[in-house]
């Protein structure tokens, strides 16, 4: 297993730049997730690490070796495709032994390795089945098996759970995590599903428009988003933003919105302009009768243990996560107030979060 490092990586298709000047270090034995909406460049980045696309410029290191311009077959990595790409004209056993045959292992060695992988993934009972007769979950396991028989330097996975139904996805998520703990392989995993990313990753890189916006542990990504995009993309629902027409000065700790003073964490950075926004997660807001932003209830969603109340205010719709016991009616006048000081101010010009007592 090896660490992976990409330096100033860039990929253009004609006029379109899919990946812009990206830098990343993925540690040995880390489960690293590239997360972003479709078209953000995450799959292109992964395919460049795999050698399925060649970078326009920049370097990729696998271990200590620079592999940016090597063929996929020379890189010693394994790739799990979204549609699995199991060879339909071979049975499970031949699919698993296909990568080993190329490397010239003896027949008995191949047999041992295939059986070992099959046992680990609990597919040893279907080794002689045809691919077309397998269920989605078993195909997924065979695809993983084909990746791990070779004991490659790194595993790359391109939305491998994307085609499974919701129930199965959760199960496979757990299995993947367990498998990763068992074999401790450096893994780069691409997904657009933030819940998947949160539950699997040691670290997440959030991408948008070909750029890596933030790469950090899931809790940091969630609690201390580096940009407005990260804040809105992560979380379900995403962070609420309230536009404020005032600059932020150093050491400022209150903010006046519509005549009400709100406490904010002590700010350590001065905003560039006067159009900024105030970001707060739905669970850090509560409904109140006075001392908050005025609005009316627009919609209520039940989530079983919690309730999401959407309040229409002068600053747009604000989502509040409340207790299930809270009872509100549609069109009822309510006020919304932060229940703690987990508040982030985003600079209107750069979309970046400003440093504060909370965002240190």
């Amino acid at each position, binding site marked *: 297993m090896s660490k992976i490092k990409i330096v100033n990586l860039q990929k253009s298709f004609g006029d379109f730049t899919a990946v812009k000047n990206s830098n990343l270090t993925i540690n040995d034995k880390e489960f690293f997730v590239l997360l972003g909406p479709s078209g953000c460049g995450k799959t292109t980045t992964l395919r460049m690490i795999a*050698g*399925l696309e060649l970078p326009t410029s920049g370097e990729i290191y696998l271990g200590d070796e620079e592999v940016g311009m090597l063929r996929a*077959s020379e890189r010693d990595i394994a790739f799990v495709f979204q549609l699995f790409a199991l060879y339909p004209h071979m049975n499970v056993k031949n699919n698993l032994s296909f990568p080993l045959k190329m490397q010239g292992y003896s027949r008995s060695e191949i047999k041992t390795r295939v059986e070992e992988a099959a046992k680990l993934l609990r597919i040893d009972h279907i080794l002689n089945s045809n691919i077309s007769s397998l269920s989605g979950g078993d195909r997924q396991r065979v695809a993983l098996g084909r990746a791990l028989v*070779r004991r490659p330097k790194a595993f790359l996975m391109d939305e491998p759970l994307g085609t499974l139904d919701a129930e199965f996805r959760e199960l496979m998520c757990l299995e993947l995590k367990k498998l990763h703990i068992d074999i401790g392989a450096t893994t780069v995993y691409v997904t657009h599903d933030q819940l998947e990313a949160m539950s699997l990753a040691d670290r997440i890189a959030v991408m948008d428009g070909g750029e890596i916006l933030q790469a950090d542990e899931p809790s940091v990504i969630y609690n201390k988003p580096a940009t407005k995009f990260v804040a809105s993309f992560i979380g379900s629902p995403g962070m609420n933003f309230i536009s404020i027409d005032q600059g932020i000065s150093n050491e400022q700790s209150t903010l006046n919105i519509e005549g009400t003073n709100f406490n904010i964490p002590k700010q350590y950075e001065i905003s560039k302009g006067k159009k900024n926004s105030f970001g707060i997660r739905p669970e850090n807001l509560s409904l109140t009768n006075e001392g908050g932003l005025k609005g009316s209830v627009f919609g209520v969603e039940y989530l079983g243990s919690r309730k999401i109340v959407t309040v229409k205010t002068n600053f747009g719709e604000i989502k509040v996560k409340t207790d299930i016991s809270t009872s509100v009616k549609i069109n009822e006048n309510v006020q919304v107030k932060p229940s703690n000081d987990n508040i982030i101010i985003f600079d209107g010009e750069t979309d970046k979060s400003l440093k504060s007592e909370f965002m240190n």
Partner: protein
Amino acid sequence: MDTSRSYLEPSSFSKKLAATIIIVYTVITLIPISWMVMTSFKNVNSAISYPPEVLFEPSLEGYVNLFTNRSRQSQEYLDSLPAPETWYEELVRSREMVITGPSKFLGRYSNSMIIGFGSTFASVFLGALAAYAFSRFRVPLKDDLLFFILSTRMFPPIAVAVPIFIMYRKLGLGDTHLGMIILYTVVNLSLAVWLLKGFMDEIPKEYEEAAMIDGYSRLQAFFKVVLPQAMTGIAATAIFCMIFSWNEYAFAVLLTQFNAQTAPPFIPTIIGEGGLDWPAIGAGTTLFLLPVMIFTIILRKHLLRGITFGAVRK
């Protein structure tokens, strides 16, 4: 109203009508073929008798004549010979003739085999490689090239007979197996490229990407992963190419005489005493029919899947 079947299913009347049309059509197309097979088992006289004989005493004379050269001898000479050793010698003797040697048919037939299968293999192999390249790579002027390849099919091949004749004479390719294989391959290649490109487009590129990640080169991935999945298309393409090169007559007449003459120009020239030897010609065409028939029957499952392949998205 009968509501037990779906609207999409044809009614029993239209099913019966379709069956009747197919049966009538099949009978009409089978009449000349069965007449040909019947003729091959007649003797020279019953083959040309009028009114035509539908019921007749079968004879293998046509087949014997097809494979042998014979000469007529006087009764005294025939009497002086030792008794015939084989059934076909006896048959020939009874017509007051002796066998002077094998005919050229077997040689012409094997020429047809070599040229037919050779050019089919070459067309499919080259066609598959070209189709793969067109399907996967960014080929400059791809659409123009594909149209250019197709345009070779827009005139009957025989329209270029004269230039090809002159070219082949200068290159020394006239009357050679290689020359005929090249010629038929060139004619079939455009069809092969277009047919196979359709099939290659349907094979997701993830398969060869997976193989390349598994350590195989692109060419190895092509042979181990892409080709096996394109078998349906390859079978269908092979049948079309085989039928063309096996049946081709005009170029064969023009470009081959001795060495590489195929069966089609040879069979109609089988001459017996006092005109064409119809039973021998019948025998020749019947045997000529067999390889393509067997080839098509073996691959017919693929053919049916092949021509409807990709019509509906799975």
